[in-house]
């Protein structure tokens, strides 16, 4: 038997399903339901894999990815590698509503979010910091590197390609690292 409306979501994220269902019951659109349901998981940090304070990268930073799609118009709004803004799917919805683009990424996506009125805030928490420091203390295992020196299955980086890196490339890497470190 089938019946409409329907909400289905991955994992046993109950509050997300309840929130989406409530939005529909109150007359919200399907897009509103998806946005509010997924936002609920961003707020609740669902199982640590959604929202702020989870999945720190190699530098200890949490970044967020989200998308939302309207099956009537086939419009999509998406953000990726979003930094320092918590409501990723809320920003994705604004990409649909206020731009002719589909996907915004990185720090520039954060600047767009701030312009849309979203707060610019740290996504790190004691939890994500402890995940990160444990990882550092276990020789950065696991990681996503391969075919590099030092051996990425045994130690932390920085990693390089095994063949001799030319002096010029060395300089470029140093310049880049200096620029990135000065970034924040």
């Amino acid at each position, binding site marked *: 038997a089938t019946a409409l*409306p329907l*909400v289905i979501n991955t994992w046993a994220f109950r509050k997300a399903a309840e929130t989406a269902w409530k939005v529909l019951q109150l007359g919200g659109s399907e897009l509103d339901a998806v946005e509010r349901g997924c936002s609920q998981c961003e707020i609740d940090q669902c199982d640590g894999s959604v929202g702020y304070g989870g999945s720190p990268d190699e530098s200890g930073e949490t970044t967020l990815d989200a998308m939302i799609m309207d099956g009537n118009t086939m419009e999509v709004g998406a953000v990726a590698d979003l930094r320092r803004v918590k409501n990723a799917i809320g920003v994705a919805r604004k990409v649909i509503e206020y731009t002719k683009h589909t996907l915004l990424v990185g720090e520039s996506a954060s600047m767009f979010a701030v312009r849309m009125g979203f707060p610019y805030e740290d996504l790190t928490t004691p939890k994500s910091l402890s995940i990160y420091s444990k990882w550092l203390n276990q020789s950065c295992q696991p990681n996503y590197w391969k075919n590099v020196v030092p051996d990425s299955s045994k130690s932390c980086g920085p990693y390089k390609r095994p063949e001799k890196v030319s002096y010029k490339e060395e300089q470029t890497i140093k310049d880049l690292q200096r620029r990135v470190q000065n970034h924040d």
Partner: protein
Amino acid sequence: TIGMVVVGGSGTIASGTSTNGAVHKIPGRVGDSPIAGAGAYADSTAGGAAATGDGDIMMRFLPSYQAVEYMRMGTDPAVACQRVISRIQKYAPRFFGAVICANTTGSYGAACNKIPGFTQFHFMVSSPLLSQPTEQVVDCI
């Protein structure tokens, strides 16, 4: 990662995802979630789907788009999800991943890839046939 598909009273569909990505990723790494057709897809003339799991692998197969295209051909949502998992299995038999599918009539299903430690996939469903949002479980294939 949360992936969600909503089918409205008149069968119109929206979908979405939100995630903080892979833990300990290389800075700049983006997975499947924000990529239309990979993390999620919606077409009110056919259906909606959303995926979760190892995004570095899954995104290459556009699982959500493919599942919707199967449903467009009349495939039952559960079978559409299974077929998408099978497609990825051929190239990456040990990938971690699951997909949820729903068509415009409100039929739905889910599928996942069976690997050690991941043999069942839990997902949430809300519908007028259920008194409240209900957790459902599917055995992985």
